[in-house]
């Protein structure tokens, strides 16, 4: 089990490809919230203020807890329609 982290649109341009965090890494780095995930995957990049976050396709904020098996996504404000 691992956590899958996705970046969409301009966030992918900023950070790069999706990243997967395995069990071992989760324990070693005490990754328990979305904020921790960003710090681990974003390679030092500052998180834009207006970034949107989803865990398992539901909107959450940075303090949300994550667990193994979750899918976490970071993306800019939506601009469809």
């Amino acid at each position: 089990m691992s956590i899958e982290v996705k970046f969409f649109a301009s966030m992918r341009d900023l950070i790069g490809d999706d990243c997967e965090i395995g069990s071992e890494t989760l324990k070693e780095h005490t990754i328990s919230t979305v904020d921790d995930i960003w710090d681990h995957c974003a390679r030092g990049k500052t998180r834009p203020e207006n970034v949107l976050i989803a865990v398992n396709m539901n909107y959450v904020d940075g303090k949300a807890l994550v667990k193994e098996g979750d899918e976490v996504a970071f993306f800019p404000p939506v601009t469809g329609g």
Partner: protein
Amino acid sequence: MTIIIDSKAFDPWKVLDDYQQNMPHLEGQYGATAVFVGTMRDFNEGDNVSEMFLEHYPGMTERHLENICKLATGEYQLLESLVVHRVGAIKPNEPIVLVAVWTAHRKQAFEACREIMEDLKSKAPFWKKEQLKDGQDRWVKKNTNGY
């Protein structure tokens, strides 16, 4: 209630014609149909736009569109609702989005159609990248407010 996300171009009037023909159980019940079609313009923020690319989050997008329509169905007593949204490469004058609702009375139809559209614009994970006539491309940064 139907949600369609499609990378192929669609003709909104043809889609509506087909959809309504499959609603025989609602004949005589709906007095009001409100429809919104969003179409790609060839200019935005002062620049000529030659093409657009629409990205989405497969799974989450469908789910949120379904939630939006379910909420509106309860709040406005919708008899039927239909949302169609393009993804992928889009050319000017092609429809991007279609929202249609069927109700007994007009107040509900007008309000539900607009609310679904606004919710879609603020919550459904779609992102537009514009290709400008001068060859550059850019992500659209935010949506305009529709109220």
